[in-house]
C-alpha cells in the first residue's frame, strides 16, 4: 500500500480548502437553475468536486508516457464528475436506478456543470503549474549562470595560485651549482632558460593575455631545463608553424601537458623519451598537442590534478567549444591535445 502513497502527492489541505470554496461559489452561481436547496446542491457539488480532485491528483501522479499529463487530468475530471454525481446520489440516499431514468436531466446538468467547472479549474491549475515550472527553469538557468561565473573565477584563482614547484626550482639550481664549476657555458644556458620560464610562470610576472607563441616559448624553456637535468633520457621537438604563434591560447595549459609528459611519461621509464609539441589549425579550430614516447598511462594510476584543472578551465573559458583529448601514441606513450576555437 505504501508504494501507492505517492499517487496522492500534492493533495494538500490547501487544495481541499480551495475545492471546498470553489464548490460553495459554484453552488451559489448556479442555484437558480435548480429547485434544490442550497445545502442539497452544495453536498452534490462537494461530492463531484472531491471525487474530481482525487482523480485529478492521481492522474497527475501516475507515471506513464502514453498520453500527455494534461489530457489525463481532463479525463480524470470528466470521470470524476460522473462518479461524483453518482456518489452524491448515494450520500443523499437517492435511488441510484432512478438517476438514469426520470431524474436523468438533473443528473446530466450537475454532471455537466461538474465537468465545466472542473475543466476551468484544471486549465487554471495547468497554467499555474506551467508558470511554476517556468519559474523553476529560470531559477535553474540563473543558478547555472552563477555556477559558471564561479567556475571562471575559480579557474582564474587556480591560475594565480599555480606556483612554480619549489622542488623543480631547487633541483634546477642544484644543477646550475654544479655546472658553474664544470661547464660554465651550460650553466649560463640553463640559467637563461630558467629566467625565461620564471618570467612566464610566476603569477606576478604573468601578463593577462597570452598567445600560443609565448606559451610555446615557455614550454621550450621548461624542456631545455629538464634536458639538462635528465641528460640523454630526454629529447624534444617543437613543430609549431610561425603563423599560428599569434593565436590566442589560454595560459599555463601547454606547460601543464608538457610537465605531465615528463612526470608521468618519460621520467618513470628509464630509457630515453621524446616529447613533441605540435600545433595546427583546422576549420577554425586550433589544435595543440603534446606527444610523448614514454610509459603511457597505467589503467590504475592517476594523471594528476593538472588534467582536471585544464578541463575545468577550458569549460569555464569556452563552454563546450573546447576540449582536452587524451590518446595513446603508437607505439608507446600518450598524445594529449587541446582544441580551442581559433582566434587571434
Amino acid at each position, binding site marked *: 500500500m505504501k508504494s501507492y502513497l505517492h499517487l496522492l502527492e500534492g493533495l494538500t489541505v490547501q487544495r481541499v480548502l480551495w475545492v471546498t470554496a470553489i464548490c460553495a461559489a459554484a453552488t451559489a452561481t448556479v442555484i437558480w437553475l435548480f429547485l434544490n436547496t442550497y445545502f442539497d446542491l452544495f453536498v452534490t457539488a462537494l461530492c463531484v468536486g472531491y471525487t474530481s480532485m482525487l482523480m485529478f491528483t492521481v492522474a497527475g501522479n501516475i*507515471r506513464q508516457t502514453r498520453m500527455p499529463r494534461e489530457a489525463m487530468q481532463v479525463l480524470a475530471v470528466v470521470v470524476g464528475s460522473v462518479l461524483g454525481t453518482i456518489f452524491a446520489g448515494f450520500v443523499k440516499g437517492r435511488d441510484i436506478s432512478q438517476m438514469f431514468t426520470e431524474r436523468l436531466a438533473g443528473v446530466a446538468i450537475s454532471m455537466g456543470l461538474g465537468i465545466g467547472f472542473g475543466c476551468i479549474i484544471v486549465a487554471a491549475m495547468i497554467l499555474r503549474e506551467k508558470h511554476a515550472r517556468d519559474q523553476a527553469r529560470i531559477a535553474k538557468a540563473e543558478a547555472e549562470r552563477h555556477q559558471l561565473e564561479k567556475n571562471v573565477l575559480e579557474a582564474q584563482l587556480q591560475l594565480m595560485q599555480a606556483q612554480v614547484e619549489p622542488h623543480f626550482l631547487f633541483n634546477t639550481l642544484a644543477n646550475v651549482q*654544479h655546472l658553474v664549476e664544470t661547464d660554465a657555458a651550460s650553466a649560463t644556458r640553463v640559467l637563461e632558460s630558467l629566467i625565461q620560464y620564471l618570467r612566464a610562470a610566476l603569477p606576478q610576472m604573468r601578463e593577462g593575455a597570452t598567445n600560443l607563441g609565448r606559451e610555446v616559448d615557455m614550454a621550450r624553456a621548461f624542456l631545455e631545463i629538464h634536458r639538462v637535468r635528465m641528460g640523454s633520457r630526454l629529447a624534444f621537438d617543437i613543430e609549431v608553424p610561425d603563423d599560428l604563434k599569434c593565436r590566442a591560447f589560454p595560459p599555463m595549459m601547454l606547460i601543464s601537458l608538457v610537465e605531465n609528459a615528463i612526470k608521468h611519461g618519460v621520467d618513470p621509464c628509464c630509457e630515453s623519451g621524446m616529447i613533441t609539441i605540435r600545433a595546427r589549425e583546422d576549420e577554425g579550430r586550433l589544435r595543440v598537442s603534446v606527444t610523448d614516447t614514454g610509459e603511457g598511462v597505467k589503467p590504475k*594510476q592517476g594523471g594528476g590534478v593538472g588534467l582536471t584543472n585544464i578541463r575545468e578551465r577550458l569549460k569555464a573559458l569556452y563552454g563546450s567549444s573546447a*576540449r582536452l583529448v587524451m590518446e*595513446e601514441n603508437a607505439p608507446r606513450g600518450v598524445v594529449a591535445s587541446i582544441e580551442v576555437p581559433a582566434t587571434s
Partner: protein
Amino acid sequence: MGFTAVIADDEPLLRANLRTRLAKLWPELAVVHEMENGRGIEEVIAAHEPDLFFLDIHMPGVNGLEAARAVAGRAHVVFVTAFDQYAVEAFERGAIDYVLKPFNEERLGVTVERLRERLEMKPASVDALVEQLAGRLGARPAEHLRWIKASVGSNVRLIPVEEVLFFQSDEKYTRVVTCDSEVLIRKPIKELLDELDPAKFWQIHRATIVNVDHIASVRRGLKDQAEIALRDNRETLVVSRAFTHLFKQM
C-alpha cells in the same frame, strides 16, 4: 680505515655534484657506486657492502624511501632532497641526516662531521621515519581503475574515470558516456565494478554504473524504482528496486 658510500640520484649532474663536494670535504670517503634509483639495491649491498647511502627521496622507479626500507639498518642512510617541507620536519625530529639541494658547503660539512662520528656505531633504524614519510608523501594511493581505454577509429582514446558520467551495458559492449563523448568498450559492467573506486562509482541497475559526482538529482520513478538526472547530460538513468536503498534519505 676509509669508509665507503653509494650515491643514488636520478640526475647524473647532481650525483656528480655531490661526489665532487664530498671529495673535497671528506677525502677518505670512497664513493664506490652510483645508482639512478633504488632498483637493485640488494645487489649493490651484496657487492659493495657500503657503510653509507646517500638517497635522493624523489626518484622514478624505486624512490629513496623504498630504498631506505630495503637497506634496513645494514648501512647508514642520508637522505638528499631538493625541497620537501614534511621530510625536513621529520628529519629534524628524528635526528636523521639529510642534505638539501642545492648543497650548502657549510651545512654539508656539519653532516660530514656527524657522519664521521656515527659511522663507528651501528646504523640507526630509519623504519619508523620512513613509514611516517611514506604516509605523508602519499606513496601508495588505493589501486582503483583511473583510465578507460577505448578504441575510437584507429586511435585509442584515454578517458580519466572522473570524466565518465555512467557506464551502461549494451548487449556485448559497455557504453562509456562522458559529458562530451560516448564510446564503447568491451569490458563488462561486472568487471568494471570490481576495479572502479566504490566510493565514487555506484551500481544502480544490473546494467548501469553511475559516477555519483555527476548526479544532479534523484527522484521516484515507476513502481519501486528511482530515476537519476545527471549534470551535463539529458539522459535519465533508472535505479532498479534492488539499488534504491542507496538513495534512501539518511
